[in-house]
């Protein structure tokens, strides 16, 4: 009895999570994990002239540039008015797609 109950609970759980999470939410969660692994060291607090996550004032002008520009700057690095953004945050193992997910997450929290 017990044994057979487990799989069905698992199935229900999977169905539930599938229903409640849109693809955008899944992407944001992936982006969050990447951001925590590589970007938080600077962007959690805004060290060394970086815009801190959630700081709408500092992000507004940057977000105006549009996502493609932010993607490009995050991948290749960017020396703007306030500091130096290292390419891929210094983590060369990140793919383009992973960097984009992290940018999207940071932007979603900052507007």
């Amino acid at each position, binding site marked *: 009895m017990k044994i057979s109950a487990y799989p069905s609970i698992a199935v229900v759980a999977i169905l539930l999570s599938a229903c409640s999470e849109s693809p955008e939410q899944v992407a944001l969660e992936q982006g969050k994990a990447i951001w*925590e692994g*590589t970007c*938080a*060291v*600077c*962007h*959690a*607090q805004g*060290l*060394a*002239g970086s815009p801190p996550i959630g700081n709408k004032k500092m992000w507004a002008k940057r977000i105006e540039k549009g996502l493609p520009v932010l993607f490009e700057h995050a991948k290749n690095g960017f*020396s703007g008015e*306030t*500091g*130096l953004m*290292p390419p891929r*945050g*210094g*983590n060369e193992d990140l793919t383009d797609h992973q960097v984009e997910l992290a940018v999207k997450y940071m932007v979603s929290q900052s507007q």
Partner: protein
Amino acid sequence: MKNTLKMTLAASSIAILTACGGDKEAGISPQQFTDALHLVMDSDRAVYTKKVVGRLTKEEKVIKASEHFMDDKALPLPAQMFRFGAETVAEKTDEFTYSLQSLWPINSQNAPVTAVEKEGLQFIVDNPGKNFYKEETLGGKNYFTAIYPDVAVAPVCASCHNDHKDSPKTDFKVGDVMGGVVIRVPLG
């Protein structure tokens, strides 16, 4: 100099805020105090690194930055600039002290001394993006100690340290926490 001036301004405006508060609850917490100080320090350091050192050495190429800035007639390194400010503050007041430290210091003067400093410097290496706060008792007196990460933003941060004869660590890379700013305030 500029560092010191801003520091003093920040400290005195905080003192005024506390003084005007009247009852105790209106004061600011030790953490708010150290967070505000750190914000000023980190911003000044970023500005010096970017608008003075970076601009004059890399863009205009008119002067170098060097550890031996007197002999070389060069700009002091950002870390030296920071230490000079801290030393000036230490001469003026006992209200707080600060220093840039590392578990792998080039200048042995920048190594952690107290148990809380060692614990905190390790904590910020293990927990990227987080600060460390703890109370400690030194010589029978209680202190609030805050430690903020200092990160390698540029390849030169890592390469200069890795190549320096006095550096105990030779594999820093961009994005690494290289050390931390330690701010200590006496309590009560």
